[in-house]
Every structure is written in C-alpha cells, then in structure tokens.
C-alpha cells in the first residue's frame, strides 16, 4: 500500500472510506483532480479546443506560442487541440473496453466459479491459452488482419481483456462461496440465482470496481502503443497517433512528441493513484494494486 502505511482506514461505508483516503492522501487527491480535468477535456473538447485537430494549415512546425499553446505539427495541425481531442479517444476506448470486458468477465467468472465442474475447467484452460501470447502482439496481429477502426479496436481489446476479470471474479466467487453467510442462505432455502446475485456478487463488487478502474488505464496504454506503432484509426485523433507522426520530426519539433506523451503519462498516473486509493478504501486488506501494464 504505497502511500498509506501510516493511516489506518476504518469504517464500514466504502464511499466514506474513499473520501477519507482522498483527504489524507495528497497524491490521490491530486490524481482525482487530474482525472476530473481530463474527463472534462474529453466531454467538452468541442468548446475547449481552439482548432479542429485534423485540420491542416500553412503554419507548419510552429513552436508553442499564445496562438498555438503546444505548437503545430508538420502539416500545421494544432497540438493543443489534438491533446484535448486525444483525451476523448483514450477515455472513450478505455471506459468502453473496461465496461464490456468487465461485464463479460463478471458473467463468465461467476458462472464458472459458482457452477464449478466441467465449465470451470473449460474456462480456466481457455483463459490460460489467452495468457500465453503477449497481449500487445495478440491485439496487434488481430488488428492487422481484421482492420483497426475504432469500433474494431474496442472489440479486439474486449476480446483480449475479459479473461483477466473472469479469472479474478472466479477466484473471488470460489472463496465467497465457502463463507458461513452463503451456507446460511443455502440452508434457508435460497435459490442459486438469489445466492449468486444477492449474497456473493455484492461482496465481490469492491474487487470488480477496482479491477475495472485499473483496466481503463491498461487499455489506454495499449491503445496508445498500437496507434504509436501505426495500427489504429486514422479518422480519430489520438495521442499514440500524434506520437507516430511526430517521431520523424523529433529533431526539429520536440513539442509534437512531448505534449501528447505527458498527457498520456499524466492520465495513466492519475488512474493508477486513484485506482490504488479505491483499492485501499474498498478492499482494506488487499495489497496495493497497479495497472497491468503490457507495454
């Protein structure tokens, strides 16, 4: 638990716990503020960004100035507007994938953990197979073969991420299933569905929420890496895409590289810190949790 060793967090309300962690921890507070800024930028990009990020102009490779806060690239596109709209793409992909992969993972993981038997074995072998090829290469190869529109990318990333949640939820369901309160519910004659949805899953929820928050960060990094290497949707501006274009001009125009890089690092850093704080507030006994960084 990185920053929290000296504070004890007690209390029964998760929201109260989270507030207390934020209050005691400047890093987590700062992280929450940074996240709010990025989210606002993503939502209100149309009002904040001074230019269309894909609109080329004659003012190429301009150094940062009051007109172009972060300078312009080789085609005269405004980097500041690109960074603002890039936040939208990153956050959109990150949240969509975490949501879809999280839901599939919870469904499959809890079914396997609760039902056990052949289905459980089958699921475990399948997820083990998914863990062999490095995630970056797996996504890269599928995107190269099947196309890499934004929609496709979200599908492919969901396809490769749901297994992580499934394994985690399965393990949690297995451990909760053995708890006395589940036994009590069984003895009281509750149906399987009631036990799963009313007894087990609500108790697994903190873990699922933390996991999904951290997944957003992992997905954002992976999506940026794909764009950076040249696989991605050129119709949507993204930080990785800006870095991909900018690396040829790194000798003359450092700003094309530095600003999108800093934005990416700041967003993922904030997600990591807030994810860790969430983890402390929701699962007080757990170890510190970080993004599963595949690139």
């Amino acid at each position, binding site marked *: 638990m990185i920053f929290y060793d*000296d504070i004890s967090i007690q209390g029964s309300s998760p929201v109260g716990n989270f507030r207390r962690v934020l209050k005691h921890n400047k890093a987590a507070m700062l992280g929450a503020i940074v996240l709010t800024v990025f989210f606002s930028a993503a939502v209100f990009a149309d009002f904040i960004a001074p230019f269309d990020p894909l609109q080329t102009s004659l003012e190429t490779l301009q150094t940062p100035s009051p007109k172009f806060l972060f300078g312009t690239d080789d085609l005269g596109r405004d980097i500041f507007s690109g960074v603002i709209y890039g936040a939208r793409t990153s956050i959109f992909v990150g949240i969509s994938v975490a949501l879809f992969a999280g839901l599939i993972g919870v469904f499959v993981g809890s079914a396997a953990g609760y039902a056990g038997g052949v289905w459980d074995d089958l699921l475990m072998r399948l997820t083990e197979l998914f863990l062999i*090829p490095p995630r970056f*290469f797996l996504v890269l190869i599928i995107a190269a073969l099947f196309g890499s529109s934004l929609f496709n990318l979200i599908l492919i990333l969901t396809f490769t991420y749901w297994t992580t949640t499934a394994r985690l939820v399965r393990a949690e369901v297995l451990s909760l299933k053995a708890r006395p309160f589940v036994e009590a519910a069984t003895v009281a004659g509750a149906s399987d569905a009631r036990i799963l949805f009313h007894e087990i899953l609500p108790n697994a929820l903190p873990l699922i929420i933390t996991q999904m928050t951290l997944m957003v960060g992992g997905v954002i990094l992976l999506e940026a890496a794909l764009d950076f290497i040249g696989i991605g949707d050129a119709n949507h501006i993204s930080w990785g895409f800006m870095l991909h274009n900018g690396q040829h001009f*790194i000798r003359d125009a450092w700003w094309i590289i530095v600003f999108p890089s800093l934005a*990416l690092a700041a967003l993922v850093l904030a997600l*990591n810190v807030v994810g860790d704080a969430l983890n402390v507030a929701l699962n007080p006994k757990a170890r510190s949790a970080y993004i599963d960084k595949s690139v």
Partner: protein
Amino acid sequence: MKNIFSHSYYRLFVKRLVQSIVLIFLLIVINFFLIHLAPGDPVYYLAGQSGDEQYYQLIRAKFGLDQPLLTQLWVYLASVLRGDLGFSLSYQQPVSAVIFARVPATLLLILSAILMASVGGVFLGVEAARRENSFYDRAFNTFALLGHSVPSFSIGHLLLLFFALYLGLFPAQGMISANQDLTGIAYFLDLLYHLALPSLTLAIVQLAQIMRLTRAAMLDVLNENFIFTARAKGLSERRVLYVHALRNALLPVVTIIGSDLGMLLSGAVLIETVYAYPGLGRLTLEVLAARDYPVLMGLFLLISIAVTAMNFVTDIVYPLVDPRIIYRR
C-alpha cells in the same frame, strides 16, 4: 539439489512438458484460424499482398486451399512443424531467415536490459525495504509508480530528447555507426554506445516492477525468526540483509524475471521503433507497413512459442531453487 531425481519432480517435469507441447500445438491452430477468419482470401495472409496471380496459384496448391478445412489445417501444421513458415515477398527470403536475422539484435537489447533491471531493481528494493516509510522509501515508491504508468515509448522519447538530442551524449538511432567499418574492440564499444539508451529505456520499465516485488518480499522475510537469529548472532546489517534475507526474498523475483519475456518483447518492439534499432521491433513495423503477412504470422507464432518455452523453463527451475513448492501442491 537431491530432489532433481525425486519422483514428484519428475512427474512435474513431464506434466509441464506435455502441457507446453499441447499449448504450442494450440497456438499453431489459432494462427491457422486467424488466417482463415480474417476478411478476404486466405491466400493474402499466407503469401503476402504483393504477389501476382501465378504465385498465388502456387501457394493455393501448396496449402491445399481448395481442400476441406481440416485437410488445410493438417497441411499447415505439417509445414510449420517442418520449420517452413512461408516465404516473404518483401524480403525475397524464407520467413524464418528474415526473422532469425533480427533475433541477435533484440536478444542483445533484452538481455542487457534484464541485467541492469535485475541488479538495480533488487538493490533498490532491498534498500527501500530497509528504510521502510522513510523519505528514500517514498522516493523509490514514487519512482515505481512512474514506472508503472509511463509507457515505454514515452520514456524512450524523453531519454532520446534529453541525452541524445539535447546533451548529445549518445547516438539517437541505429545499432552501429554507419560507413565506419569498425572491427574488434572499436566495434564492440560502438555497439555498446548505441545500445546504452534503448537498453536503459527497457530496463527502467522492468526495474520498477522488480524493485516493487523485491521490496514486498523483503518486508515479508524480515519478520521471520531466522532474521532475528542472524541479528542476535551479531552479524552485520549488510550481511543479514543481503545474505540471509535476500536469498529467501529473491525467489518470487526470479519467477518474474523469467516470466516477463512477453512484456520485454512488447517493450522491445516499441523501443526499437523509437531508436530505429534494427531488431524484431523494426521488423514488425516494416512488415506491417508492407502488409507482409507471412512474416507477421511467423513473428506472432515464434514469440508465442518463445514465451511458452520460457514459462516451461521457469516452472521447472523454480522447484530446484525453492524445494518447498513441490510439496505444497
């Protein structure tokens, strides 16, 4: 080391070996289905996009593309197992030759990075655990957090901008200086000079993880009785930490170093792109641009097999280092 010959170890060895072979077999099957599920004629993915009709006819006949799917799978499996991964049109060479020509450069990058990351990571981790909750500990932890957040290519770009372009201390790209025909010591030094930045970048990403693990493992071990005994015997603190405690804390760290080949390779691809370093990463970029699918599929398959093999080695070496593991199962 007695347990090398023990029955349970032998059983573990055989079980893992069979599992690995099955996994490799499944990976080849997955590769096959990816080729056939992808939109368009599979011949593009087996031959590449720049061929002519005559060449495609040849490939269609070779892989039996007019036969039933199961027959095709059989033909594909047989050719991959023979070591035939196809022919690259953009390089005019067999795929395996194209790939293996790039392996040494990437291997050099990865091995030097692992060396730096494990030595540095273990040392920093021990020092952080020793001063738990001190200013240093917090500084180390902040560094670990940064390492877990900033992507490898951004670290690469920032180091490149600062050390190569701003300070001019290191070359910005390539593996050796062009047009200089160096030999012997001079060649070796030139190689190291070009390796420094890419290797450091890859090492930083790994270092954060190894450091954090070492710190956590050390904190666990430092509460054990044998540490109190060692201290009570009057041993120096350095000896207690680096001999008695570290030996036991190192075990989980060793597994991580072994099982991170996949992440190292992914990192290498991105970092090689940043530094124009001519390894597997550059190759990936080039074949993506040329739509040279046979090389791409070959790369994917070989990387998956390398990771499977590395997992196998880690699995069978671990009980040798830590005999407890066998009896826990």
